[in-house]
């Protein structure tokens, strides 16, 4: 996938939706879909104080590139932007942004949902949830 069609970033800084939106805008595209994952205050009845993300960065980037390539092949996307936050993230802050541009809207919805579903399956990023009385790695229990 050409560099100017794909933008992947893992960062400790706050994520910016406008930046991800601007990257994918194209005169040939009429439909842009964006998914934004924010930190929820409650999970299964427990109050969360914040999250902490860590990542195996070179592999995470390689896996995201594979996922983006599949999305392009399956849904004929034009441009894809995937930004994921690392480190400590507060309630309502953004953990992940995915933006996708396509000629038509249906493909943009499908590609964006495909990317977040795959990201949650295969990209080596780990989330630790901090509650008032402790912390644990999400999904770690079998």
């Amino acid at each position, binding site marked *: 996938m050409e560099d100017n069609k794909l933008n992947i970033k893992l960062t400790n800084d706050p994520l910016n939706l406008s930046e991800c939106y601007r990257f994918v805008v194209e005169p040939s595209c009429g439909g842009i879909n964006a998914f934004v*994952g924010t930190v929820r205050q409650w999970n299964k009845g427990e109050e969360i104080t914040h999250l902490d*993300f*860590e*990542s*195996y960065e*070179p*592999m*995470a980037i*390689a896996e995201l590139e594979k996922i983006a390539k599949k999305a392009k092949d399956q849904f004929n996307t034009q441009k894809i932007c995937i930004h*994921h936050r690392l480190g400590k993230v507060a309630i309502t802050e953004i*953990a*992940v942004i995915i933006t996708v541009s396509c000629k038509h809207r249906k493909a943009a919805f499908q590609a964006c949902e495909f990317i*977040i579903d795959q*990201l*949650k*399956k*295969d*990209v*080596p*990023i*780990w*989330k*630790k949830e901090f509650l008032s009385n402790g912390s644990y*790695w*999400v*999904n*770690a*229990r*079998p």
Partner: protein
Amino acid sequence: MTVLCFGIARDIVGQSKLTIDREGINSVEGLRHFLIETFPKFKEYTSFRIAVNQAFASEKDEVTNSDEIAIIPPVSGG
């Protein structure tokens, strides 16, 4: 052989880079058995995949001392 440990795997192993100095581990499967034997908490706390050179590996894949190996517990990004 150096094995990178992330998330709960780092907590179980107690370090982020585990050095294994032992003959006879030459497949992903062999490495998995060694890890579970050495750190029984893996059985209790989590499942894991193994990555070789920054890609998910199959159980039969070879591993050598020059490979970049990592324990990948269940991911939870997004």
